């Protein structure tokens, strides 16, 4: 998977409120699958499906000890996604501020010569 595909997966995984709630819960501490399912009014297979999507996006890891599956947060893909956003946000915010100043100066000139 290249970086663009990884980012797409990360953002797609984050579009669902149940998955975001799961990530927020894991931010506090690792959890078992049944602990993750408890606050949600959905069945275990649905939770497993959400965990599968989060796992594919690299946002969580799962490890099995006996009959218990422990789920952990894996922050790297999230960090990549945020870096992408931050970098371009800085770039374009500054650029658009300058564009605004330039266009407004041109408008003032144009109005002056209209008169």
């Amino acid at each position, binding site marked *: 998977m*290249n*970086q*663009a*595909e990884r*980012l*797409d997966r990360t*953002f*797609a995984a*984050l*579009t*669902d409120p149940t998955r*975001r709630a799961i*990530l*927020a819960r894991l*931010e506090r501490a690792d959890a078992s699958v049944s602990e993750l399912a408890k606050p949600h009014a959905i069945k275990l297979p649905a939770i497993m499906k959400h965990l599968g999507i989060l796992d594919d996006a690299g946002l969580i890891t799962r490890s099995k000890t006996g009959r218990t599956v422990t789920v952990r*947060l894996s*922050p790297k893909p*999230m*960090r990549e*996604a*945020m870096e*992408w*956003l931050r970098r*371009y*946000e*800085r*770039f*374009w*915010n*500054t*650029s*658009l501020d*300058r*564009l*605004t*100043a*330039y*266009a*407004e100066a*041109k*408008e003032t000139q*144009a109005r002056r010569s209209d008169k």
Partner: protein
Amino acid sequence: MTSLTLVRRIKARPAIVFEALVTAEGIAQWWGPDAGPVVVAEVDARVGGRFKVRFRMLSGSEHETTGEFLEIVPPERVSMTWQWAGEDADPESRIDIVLRAIGDGTELTFTHAQLPDAKTRDGHVKGWNGSLDKLEAIFAKGEAGV
């Protein structure tokens, strides 16, 4: 799909803003992440035409961006592909700029998105906007713990 959207209200008519977006003279005035100068601006503003913009940052480092115009509708809309020149660059992404006349000027909506592949083109964009706050909150905590 990853995307970034910024909106500006500019006290200038759409035709003036549009010209600043598609002419080398205009682009040279604003393109870049800090107050450093644009040192090269080559712009072939027609569908399929390319642009090359090289800017120098205040730190002295120079960077070049290139792309191809996908859509040009004066004075309403410009779409282009966008990429850093050089190796180890991000993959090609897409920029859409939409201009709308408002009372005292122009509302500019700027979107920088990664070029979507067929699989992600449908459906993800809407959901993404609502995710941003949560993502930032989660990320801020995650970063503190690293």
